[in-house]
């Protein structure tokens, strides 16, 4: 095995958690059962790596094979970096019938036409997601397997999730994706986060959304420990209402784990106590970033506890409704195109 292969193997072994190593290796299928038996998995990672390097030499494995191992690991542990969502738009008539084989051939074909020296590996995961690993080179150098881009796509879903992509290579990947999925274009979906499943569930609407229906069961109510029954009775109704509205805005139960939402505000400053600023023509520029271990759950709690007023402002409820966590907000000027939301007065 050449040096890049060795480097990659070392890194992959280092990243795989010790208790998962045996399972992942047997999943890989490039090491025989007998060889696997001969490895002592209780020794240090360093010793293990040496042993595995020997086995790979023995089996005459190449860097290509090691990339398979890396893919298996990344599919198992996808939440290691930032994932960015992109959206395909304007499908061709042929788009709904693109199948895995077609897509695979087309993607490899288009990408290698756009750039020499790329190494592409495509694998279909059990949940029908297509995982693509792209190692980029350029006209002169071989593909760099240490900095691969990962792409996840569900055929016919119009969403693509990408991690570790440099802006220089983005146009190439975009073009290859558009051509091979038979869409007209691709755009930034303004959604990013560390948890791939969360982004996917949010966009595919696979979480418990709440609607008011005839048959709706009352939402599980929070027990608020108010000592005075009078006050409790007075407040119970509005508390229930707030809770219902909070759940309608953000969803019920465990929500997709987003870490942040960013709003770039360029709106007029309006305050009846401050005439000078209200009269000012220019917008008041600021950036607001919300962060939490689970942003949607935090926001839901804000609304149900009354810290945020209900009904929830469209600015906040746009995160789940539109599946975005980056917004540029400007005042709606008649005639201007809008990628914008108007703050409700």
């Amino acid at each position: 095995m050449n040096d890049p292969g060795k480097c990659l193997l070392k890194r992959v072994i280092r990243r795989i958690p010790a208790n998962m190593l045996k399972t992942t290796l047997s999943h890989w299928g490039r090491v025989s059962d007998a060889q696997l038996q001969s490895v002592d998995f209780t020794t240090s990672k360093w010793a293990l790596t040496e042993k595995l390097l020997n086995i790979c030499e023995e089996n005459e494995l190449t860097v290509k094979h090691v990339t398979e191992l890396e893919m298996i690991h990344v599919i198992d542990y996808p939440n290691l970096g930032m994932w960015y969502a992109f959206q395909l738009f304007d499908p061709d008539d042929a788009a709904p019938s693109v199948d895995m084989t077609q897509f695979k051939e087309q993607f490899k074909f288009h990408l290698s036409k756009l750039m020499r020296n790329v190494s592409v590996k495509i694998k279909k995961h059990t949940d029908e997601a297509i995982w693509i690993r792209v190692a980029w080179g350029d006209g002169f150098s071989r593909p760099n397997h240490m900095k691969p881009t990962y792409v996840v796509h569900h055929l016919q879903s119009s969403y693509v999730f990408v991690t570790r992509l440099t802006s220089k290579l983005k146009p190439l990947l975009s073009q290859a994706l558009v051509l091979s999925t038979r869409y007209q274009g691709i755009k930034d979906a303004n959604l990013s986060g560390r948890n791939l499943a969360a982004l996917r569930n949010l966009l595919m609407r696979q979480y418990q959304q709440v609607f008011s229906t005839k048959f709706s069961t009352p939402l599980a109510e929070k027990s608020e420990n108010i000592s005075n029954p009078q006050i409790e009775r007075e407040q119970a109704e509005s508390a229930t209402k707030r809770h219902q509205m909070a759940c309608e805005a953000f969803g019920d139960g465990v929500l997709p784990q987003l870490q942040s939402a960013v709003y770039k505000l360029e709106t007029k400053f309006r305050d009846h106590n401050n005439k000078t600023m209200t009269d000012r023509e220019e917008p008041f520029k600021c950036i607001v970033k919300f962060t939490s271990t689970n942003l949607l759950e935090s926001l839901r709690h804000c609304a149900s506890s009354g810290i945020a007023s209900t009904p929830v402002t469209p600015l906040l409820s746009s995160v789940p409704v539109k599946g975005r966590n980056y917004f540029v907000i400007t005042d709606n000027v008649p005639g201007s195109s809008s990628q914008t939301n108007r703050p409700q007065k």
Partner: protein
Amino acid sequence: MDRATTSAASTPHRSALVKRRSKSKSHRQSYRSCSGGAASRIGLTPALTARRLNTSRKAPKSLNITERVNAEHLALLVKTKWKLCYATPLYQFRHTMLKSYARQLSAFIVAEKQRGLAVEVEGAQNHFRASFSVLQGLAEADDPETILIQIHSKPLFSSSEEPQRCVWSGWLSCINGNLDYLHSLPQGFTCLPLFGSSGTEVLTTLVKSWCQKTFDCSFGPLEINYTSLQWFMALLTNCHTESNIQHLKMIWSIPVEPPLQVAFTVSPQDAWELWSSVRTATRDLADPGGCIDFEEVERFTQGLKSHFYRHFRLDLSAGSLKEVSTALGGASINGRVKISNSRYMITTLALLTECALLKMPI
């Protein structure tokens, strides 16, 4: 509880009994009893916590202290993020005995280390050298000069000719301390209420305990409360015309489950325009140098909060302000500050000295 408060009012503030019962209350009382002055007086009613600090202060004048302060010292002060504590007045401290203090502290650190306590590096007895120096040029009026303490050490595996590195720095300071208070101190006490440190926690603890032992003083954490953080915000923004603040950033924490953090960053020009719009016009005309009233500071924060509320319908008052920062410096509630621009060093330290004096038990 009720009874304790009543007795506190009628008992002299040095009473140990009162102190034990309601510590914080008696501290404030003692400081207040010294600061009878009309202008810099703390709120009349203890309930109005927002008025504990000066309700009005001078706008920060850009002060070129580069000529007064040793360049190396200034560079250290500016580049470091400091963790703050308050320190009670030092007994029998002499600015003339710094050399002797340095020897004592070095010996103390070595001794503590030999007792098998604390210090992390083993077998490096002679590798700690403490130094004391006067940080001249900061003090104003009757303030005692600021003291800089540094601890130098050599990495464990290093050659003998390699110079020692500074592994810990700290200072004790008093800038624009309340004169009534300073003058009321009995003979033999030096008031350097602000203690800043940067380095390992272990060394900080050692330095503190040496000071406690030597000068019969005590240290406590210095939280920078909401009022002071608001002052920080306003004072820093007020500097914008002289040196660009680049941004005004506030970090709020909202008590929900899981906790929500809100970072609110305002563009420098807009922050400044909002600030000038809340200044009281008449005052500006009468006194161009300007005093800043706390009311103006409050209007400023209120303006920012209402702009936020108008968009997100979320009341920031329900949470707490954790941190404020601009390119000129920043402060956080847990007593960490950074002063990035030497021109506003004095103003900032004066505000912090005031915080420390208020926090102090005696």
